[in-house]
């Protein structure tokens, strides 16, 4: 039990310099949280003091950031001015990550959504962009490609998702290519409603009416078949 406890403590310590410093100032809190031998306790307190520990902190942060930079590109552009404080808050709220990128981006998306819902995060386009990133990742990680399969004649393509957005999807996605949070926010038309996003390396967006979107989401037959979606083989 003891070596395991030592390893858990070390894993916690390398996740932030503040954690180690707090334990160093108050070793009793370290002993309280982990069941360590005298030797293990002294080892950890000794390691916290080493200058080289900063490489551990740096690598932890870099490695935890990797899935977000790879898979939440649009969202990161929007939150860029507040990136580091948000990340530190996220790591504090979600101190443990899994081995899978899919889990980590799910945690981060949940974290941002909770903050938006609580009115603590208000940045241009953020909610929409987060919905788009989530949809793209859902497509990327869809293992059995059956998200919308129903028994009816028309089924949504496995590489497509239905989302609800406030801004016009195509204009927003275009604006995101050159988006720079330091510049004035680009002019993107407000067009609240449902959109079908289709992604196979390139993203295409189609506005759909509420009845169609709800039918697709609930896996029911679509009454009024949108021709464009059939022509582009998004409804198949």
């Amino acid at each position, binding site marked *: *039990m003891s*070596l*395991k406890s*030592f*390893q*858990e403590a*070390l*894993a916690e310590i*390398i*996740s932030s310099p503040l954690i180690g410093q707090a334990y160093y100032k108050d070793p009793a809190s370290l002993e309280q949280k982990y069941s360590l031998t005298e*030797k293990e306790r*002294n*080892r950890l307190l*000794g*390691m916290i003091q*080493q200058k*080289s*520990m*900063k*490489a*551990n902190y*740096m*690598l*932890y942060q870099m*490695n*935890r950031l990797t899935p977000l930079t790879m898979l939440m590109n649009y969202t990161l552009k929007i939150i860029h001015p507040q990136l580091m404080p948000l990340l530190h808050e996220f790591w504090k709220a979600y101190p*443990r*990550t*899994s*081995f*899978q990128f*899919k889990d980590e981006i799910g945690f981060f998306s949940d974290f941002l959504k909770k903050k938006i819902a609580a009115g603590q995060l208000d940045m241009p386009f953020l909610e929409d962009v987060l919905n788009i990133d989530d949809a793209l990742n859902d497509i990327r*990680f869809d*293992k059995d490609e059956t998200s919308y399969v129903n028994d009816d004649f028309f089924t949504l393509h496995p590489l497509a998702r239905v989302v609800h957005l406030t801004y016009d999807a195509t204009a927003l996605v275009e604006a995101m290519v050159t988006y720079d949070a330091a510049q004035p926010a680009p002019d993107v038309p407000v067009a609240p409603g449902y959109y079908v996003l289709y992604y196979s390396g390139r993203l295409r967006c189609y506005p759909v009416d509420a009845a169609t979107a709800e039918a697709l989401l609930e896996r029911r037959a679509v009454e009024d078949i949108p021709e464009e979606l059939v022509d582009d083989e998004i409804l198949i």
Partner: protein
Amino acid sequence: MNTPTGIGMIYNIALDPYFDLYPHTLDYIELTPDILIQDQGPGQPGRFLQVAKEWEMIRGLAQRWPLVAHHIGFSLGSADYFDKEYLDNVLQLHDEFGFHWHSDHLSYSKLIQGDDPEYNTCLALPVPYDKESLDMIAAKIRLIKEQVGTPFFIENNVYFAEIPDEELTEPEFLKNLCQEAGCGLLLDLHNVYVNSRNFNFDPFTFVDALDLGTVQEIHIAGGNEAGGMYLDSHSGAVPEEVWQMLDHVLPRCTQIRGITFEVDESYIPEIGFESVANQLNKARNIWNKHKTPQHVA
């Protein structure tokens, strides 16, 4: 195919065109299956998914070169932990690809705490060089070896904090571990170099203290400096000192099977395929200088 001896490289996606451009630079390919697998988590049905389209590429490469497996997911150093499902998946991959040997690292990266599912430490952390960790890791390696039925090598680690008051030195630990587990040493010379720079010791004295007769594979790679530390970023060209270390140890590595070059995919566009080929050719020159008849497959 015969057991490979010679020069190999760790596969990454950015290398795909390389294999047709410079096939003669390679005698074998080292694969880290974890990078092409989605792990749904312990206990999940169909837990390990081969989602990446690169598996087709790997199947193609397996027709042309011997493959060896370099895992990152056994987390051999984690106390009270052994992932039997992970081993089962390795066995399944082994059945398909017939890896000539398997290896993993002397470190830990996965933990289970309380009721939480397995979580990731985000970097490979060092284990204390004590008898307790030695026995624990040796038992796991023996189990893997017995199941897989091929040689198994353990790779020396990079660390960014020294654990105080250890029972054994790193060379003693590695020697005893190889003995107790019946495994070989995968000597990562760049890892030794990284540690020597960050903790101020002579890497040549360090390698001289190793039991070089246990070395069955060598890793070479490049790194870079960041924030006053030297990192094993696998960023391209192998530093001159690491080449010298290779030349220095190779005559005494009597059991060596291969020298493997590691480069991270994010650096490939920057350094280019030709520079990758140059590194492999340089390794081959040193290999040719020291190889003995027993090293010719």
